[in-house]
């Protein structure tokens, strides 16, 4: 390298090739070499191991930067040249035009979505664009964001990208967001309180406005708490409460019982019985069930006789115990008579709300972890219903934090995991994108992250980086991930040959700390 030039991994470089074409590469590993062939040479040079001795002249040393070839750019519409670059050609920092062509920004099928800034070591800054057709379909879909808690700023990046999509698509999509942390995502309509001048500058360069989501387009759904109050941290001003009566979800008891082991499908038999025989309630001989309280008071022997055709079956007592554990003393499970006007069944509300421009925020932070999968699963099933009925036609983004909780990497996926896998598989053609966030991608079902077109990686630990989801990263990329700072991400997009390091601004809404 020319004396004085500083270069770093992930810098873009370009070199002239045949036919007036040029090849663009990305710096990967940089090594320093001297003409000392062994440590013994250096030992002798330091006067046989004297650390204070200074050689009289500097030893010759070189830095060699290896680059991964991204593209060969031609002006004659011929196929790109895959030949090695001729030797002794000077290599330069790539300019914006070269980077743009190498990453295919000039061949975007949908809308160009700014995803961050590339900062070259020579001081140049370029905008990185994603193709919306590869984020929310129909070419491909889904985003997965991973990184350690706090430092990686995973949620911040997800919300920055969602905002970018919302702005660039002029709101022609629906967004469903699950809030899993305090009131992090309960003030998306409020002005940001922590944007720095540097953040504003990045927004300007990205062609985005640092503005929150429009208040009139957001619906916040908070869980019903004791006394009909919201069970949320720092609730927003306008919200609706959600709660579940038995009549709302009698057909979805499989979701409620999803985490309960059922190796012989005996619980499944009960679920099917209720679903098939519900008429404003369901009867077990003389015992009528139309609310949660009646359900958990059902005599087990009656269920045994009605569902299993035996005077005694071991499943009903276990079933009643599980139902008590899942629903008793949980204010979100209510009877019709207790429901206030501001309370809704979330599944139906989602169906009513999924319209262009809408942003639906569902708070599940204070929901016990045993009930959270049920809420997510119920929303997924409602969306599935809409598809089946042909009522969902506009693009949809579903943002799920702590994705490993809902789609864990287990051999036998639960019904909720299956719903999420289904979206990962079919979302591309349905134009439904799953934005999943988690600390450890290795703990998420591989069919979920494997279907993502965009992988975003924040700071991670070395143990996680050695797991299969990161196998495609070079060692240098892994080293970079270990040292990423807040506001820096490595993004790997389906259309690119190598990941890119970007910086991004804080999201433009009021955040809790």
């Amino acid at each position, binding site marked *: 390298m020319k004396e004085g030039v500083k270069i770093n991994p992930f810098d873009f470089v370009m070199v002239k090739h045949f036919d007036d074409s040029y090849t663009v590469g990305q710096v990967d590993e940089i090594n320093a070499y001297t003409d000392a062939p062994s440590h013994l040479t250096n030992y*002798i040079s330091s006067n*046989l191991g004297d650390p204070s*001795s200074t050689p009289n*002249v500097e030893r010759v040393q070189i830095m060699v930067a290896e680059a991964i070839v991204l593209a060969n750019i031609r002006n004659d519409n011929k196929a790109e040249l895959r030949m090695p670059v001729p030797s002794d050609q000077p290599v330069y920092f790539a300019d914006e035009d070269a980077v743009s062509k190498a990453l295919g920004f000039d061949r975007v099928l949908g809308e160009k979505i700014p995803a961050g800034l590339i900062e070259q070591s020579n001081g140049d800054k370029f905008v990185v664009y994603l193709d919306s057709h590869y984020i929310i379909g129909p070419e491909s879909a889904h985003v997965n964001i991973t990184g350690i808690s706090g430092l990686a700023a995973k949620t911040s990046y997800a919300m920055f990208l969602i905002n970018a999509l919302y702005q660039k698509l002029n709101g022609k999509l629906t967004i469903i967001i699950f809030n899993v942390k305090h009131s992090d995502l309960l003030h998306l309509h409020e002005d940001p309180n922590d944007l720095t001048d540097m953040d504003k500058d990045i927004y300007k360069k990205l062609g985005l406005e640092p503005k929150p989501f429009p208040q009139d387009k957001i619906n916040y759904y908070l869980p019903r708490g004791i006394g009909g109050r919201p069970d949320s941290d720092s609730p927003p001003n306008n919200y609706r409460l959600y709660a579940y009566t038995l009549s709302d979800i009698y057909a979805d008891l499989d979701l409620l019982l999803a985490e309960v082991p059922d190796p012989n499908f005996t619980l499944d038999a009960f679920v099917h019985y209720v679903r098939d025989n519900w008429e404003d309630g369901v009867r077990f001989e003389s015992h009528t069930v139309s609310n949660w309280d009646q359900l958990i008071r059902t005599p087990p022997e009656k269920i045994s006789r009605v569902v299993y055709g035996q005077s005694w079956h071991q499943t009903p007592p276990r079933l009643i115990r599980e139902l008590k554990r899942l629903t008793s003393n949980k204010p979100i499970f209510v009877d019709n008579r207790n429901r206030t006007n501001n309370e809704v069944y979330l599944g139906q509300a989602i169906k009513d709300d999924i319209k262009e421009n809408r942003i639906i925020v569902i708070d599940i932070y204070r929901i016990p972890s045993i009930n959270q999968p049920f809420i997510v699963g119920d929303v997924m099933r409602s969306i599935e219903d809409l598809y089946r009925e042909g009522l969902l036609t506009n693009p949809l983004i579903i943002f799920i934090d702590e994705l490993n909780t809902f789609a864990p990497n287990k051999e036998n996926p639960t019904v909720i995991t299956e719903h999420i896998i289904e979206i990962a598989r079919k979302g591309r053609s349905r134009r439904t994108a799953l934005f999943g966030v988690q600390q450890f991608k290795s703990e998420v079902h591989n069919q979920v992250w494997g279907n993502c077109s965009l992988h975003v990686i924040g700071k991670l630990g070395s143990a996680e980086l050695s797991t299969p989801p990161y196998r495609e990263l070079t060692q240098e990329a892994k080293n970079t991930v270990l040292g990423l700072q807040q506001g820096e991400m490595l993004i790997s997009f389906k259309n690119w040959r190598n990941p890119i390091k970007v910086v991004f601004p804080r999201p433009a809404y009021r955040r809790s700390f």
Partner: protein
Amino acid sequence: MTSLYNDQLSDIKSLGMTLRGGDFVTAPSETPIEEERRADFDQVYDDQNFMNENVCICIEELSNNKKYIGDIKYTQRLSYFLDGSLRTKYLGEYIEDDRSFPVLATEVISSVVKREKRDLRLEKLNRKFVFIFPHKEIGLISDTLFDKLNSLDSSWRSRNSTFYIEFLKGKPERDIRYSMQGKARDIMHKLESETANHLTPNESDWLVMDGALRKEEFTKLEYTIGLAKSFSRKPSFKLSNSTLNIARYLSQIKEGERTAIFKTKADEKICFWYIRLRTHPPMEPLEGVVKVDYVHEKNELTEEDIKLIDELSSEIYALRSPSVYPHPRWPSLIYPIRLAEEFMHTAFTNHEVIGYYGKILAKTIRGEMS
């Protein structure tokens, strides 16, 4: 393909056309055979200094016959480091009627490394690719061919080609190929001398030549020393109280010490002394020692002369680091000279290209290529 490559190819064909009419038997391998380096020529040259008289005259009296120079403060003077190298190839045998002679090609390179404080950089690199033929006076080549080759050489020189033709004069010492190799070395020394003449050593920027100041031209260079890592084992040294052979004398010289200063005979232009750069790991007495040649025509040394020699010695001693281990001569090789060597080695034309040139030459001579 580069224009330099095309020019060279065209010049090779010109040589082939010039040689057309005779027969050319190429070296029996794919690539021309590299001529063996049969001896350490620095040592051979130094041996010649002691052919008749091997007792050296001491021109400096020292107690214990040695001086520690490792801690003498010096002004940095040694700035240019010059080395030369060559690769000589036997291309084949040329047969013209009842005459025949070997054709050798030698690539000679000289390079200069410039030192600025602690930094080293390449100051100059000169190279020549020379075809060596016997001179017509030896009787192995016809007058006509000799004249044609002379004319070709003139045309090459007129347009600054990298190719040259040189002729071996005089009766061959052992065999013609051996003498042609000697000619190749002469060409290298000449190139070294030309390179040195283009430098401007001065009081604060001295030139260090690798090896002895053996050529007359070298002794005319001011502010120049020769630094030889190989030298003759023949000399003895007449000291105040005894005469010691070189092995015994140098075995008494410890790291950082120099010997007294000597001349091979009175009124000799050059004085010399030895400095031990290293003693560890244990090595034989002449290893780890450099011989310094310095032009000093008088038979006495003033205090200023000795001060200068001490400072130069101290500076040479300091240059033993960085080490060039595991080079076979590492104990007595200083880094800037090694770097100059390295620049040359990377500049030599590679074997495949020379092999290709040989094939083109043979085909052109045989009329298979024009």
